């Protein structure tokens, strides 16, 4: 037990560098994914047939196929069409597109719940559709989506682990090189698992704080009724 502990302390600095990249990838993917997901679910709910179809297509494809496959398609497949991106960019694109599709689904549920009635109320005082979506529907739908949406940051954090397969230097990549150097794969990967656990725990705590901070008195109950 103690030798594992010593081992762990020894490789920790290296692992931390990798963890930093992991967190960065998560933050970037989450943000870009949010913009994509929001756009897609708004398009799906309020736009015309063309944009709606595009949104549905995007969501179905990126939720219906594995992240790893999407990653490979972008990194190995696109160069076949003459489009080459750097490793980092490929990872970012795959993670964002993937996360966006899942986030779109979370938002769709709450947009539907809030939707029609509040749209009518906003329009009844002379607000345009766009203004109503921005000032009335989104503030409520986003809040309502928080509990379900909180699954996404943690899920994304765990998903980033696969990008080591295209040699992006995040936590898993570090683990692989350490395992090769120390000839102790099991020990290394267990150490890595512990670091992931710590990150997930922290992320979860932040999310729960966010949920509490954004509460509106009486609102969740209204939401649930709808």
């Amino acid at each position, binding site marked *: 037990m103690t030798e594992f502990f010593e081992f762990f302390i020894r490789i920790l600095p290296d692992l931390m560098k990798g963890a930093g990249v992991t967190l960065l990838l998560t933050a970037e993917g989450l943000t870009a994914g949010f913009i994509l997901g929001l756009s897609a679910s708004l398009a799906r709910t309020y736009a015309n047939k063309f944009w709606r179809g595009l949104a549905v297509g995007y969501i179905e494809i990126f939720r219906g196929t594995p992240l790893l496959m999407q990653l490979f398609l972008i990194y190995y497949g696109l160069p076949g069409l003459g489009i080459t991106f750097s490793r980092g960019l490929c990872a970012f694109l795959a993670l964002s597109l993937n996360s966006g599709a899942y986030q779109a689904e979370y938002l769709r549920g709450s947009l539907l719940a809030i939707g029609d009635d509040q749209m009518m109320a906003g329009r009844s*005082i*002379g*607000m345009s559709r766009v203004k109503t979506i921005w*000032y009335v529907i989104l503030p409520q739908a986003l*809040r309502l989506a928080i509990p379900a949406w909180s699954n996404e940051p943690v899920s994304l954090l765990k998903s980033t682990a696969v990008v080591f397969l295209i040699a992006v230097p995040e936590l898993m990549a570090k683990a692989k090189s350490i395992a090769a150097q120390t000839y102790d794969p099991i020990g290394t990967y267990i150490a890595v698992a512990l670091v992931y656990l710590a990150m997930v725990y922290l992320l979860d705590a932040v999310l729960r704080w966010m949920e509490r901070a954004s509460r*509106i008195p009486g609102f969740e109950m209204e939401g649930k009724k709808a």
Partner: protein
Amino acid sequence: MSNPILETRNLTKIYGQNIIFKDINLKVNEGETIVIIGPSGTGKSTLLRCINLLTANEGGQVFLDGQEITAKNYNEDKVRQQIGMVFQNFLLFNHLTALDNVMIGLLKVKKMSKEQARQKAMEELKRVGLEDRASHYPGQLSGGQQQRVAIARALAMDPRVMLFDEPTSALDPELIGEVLGVMAQLARDHMTMLVVTHEMGFAREVADRIVFMEKGSIVEEGTPDELFYHPKNERTREFLWKITELYGKKEKEQSATA
């Protein structure tokens, strides 16, 4: 008689295979309170929504102050600044306080300054008796209070006409009074009002004219006296007596001695 402030001509609404209402001709004069009554499902709510263009129509026109608002390129949003609406389910903006609910239209649609908007909003809240609830969220208010805030929200836009779609139907009985009270005061202040309701007491006391609608058309219209005591149409008589029976024998006795 000067021109009506609100008028519908041959207004028709068809949904799929169903004719909701056909060729409705209604004239509302400035300062009048018109109450629309009739069995549920006869399109009274839909009629209101066609008037403020929340729902499209399949025929006919609506005129506000002589202007045809159903014309092709007429700005719908502008129309709704002039025609206010109060819904059965209040439909307050749940993420905003009572004050913000009233203010938001002033800020984002009328583009007032924050100070001006706040002042006007507080005035309207005072008007409905809720200035001390300004910083409460809808979830913290009773149904009657929520509906009064909804009325304030609509009034804040200074509309020419106010539409009320069964404003008390979703309220507990003891809360109905406070809302009807606000509406009655509005009528006394000469607001032009079009009210769909089952509250016969209100109709009798406050309406200048009552319109009885059934199966998609206007069966009869007239003053409360005319409709309640001298209805011309058999259906009108039937309907009114059935309803007043529900609301207590007192009404029948009072009219018998009238």
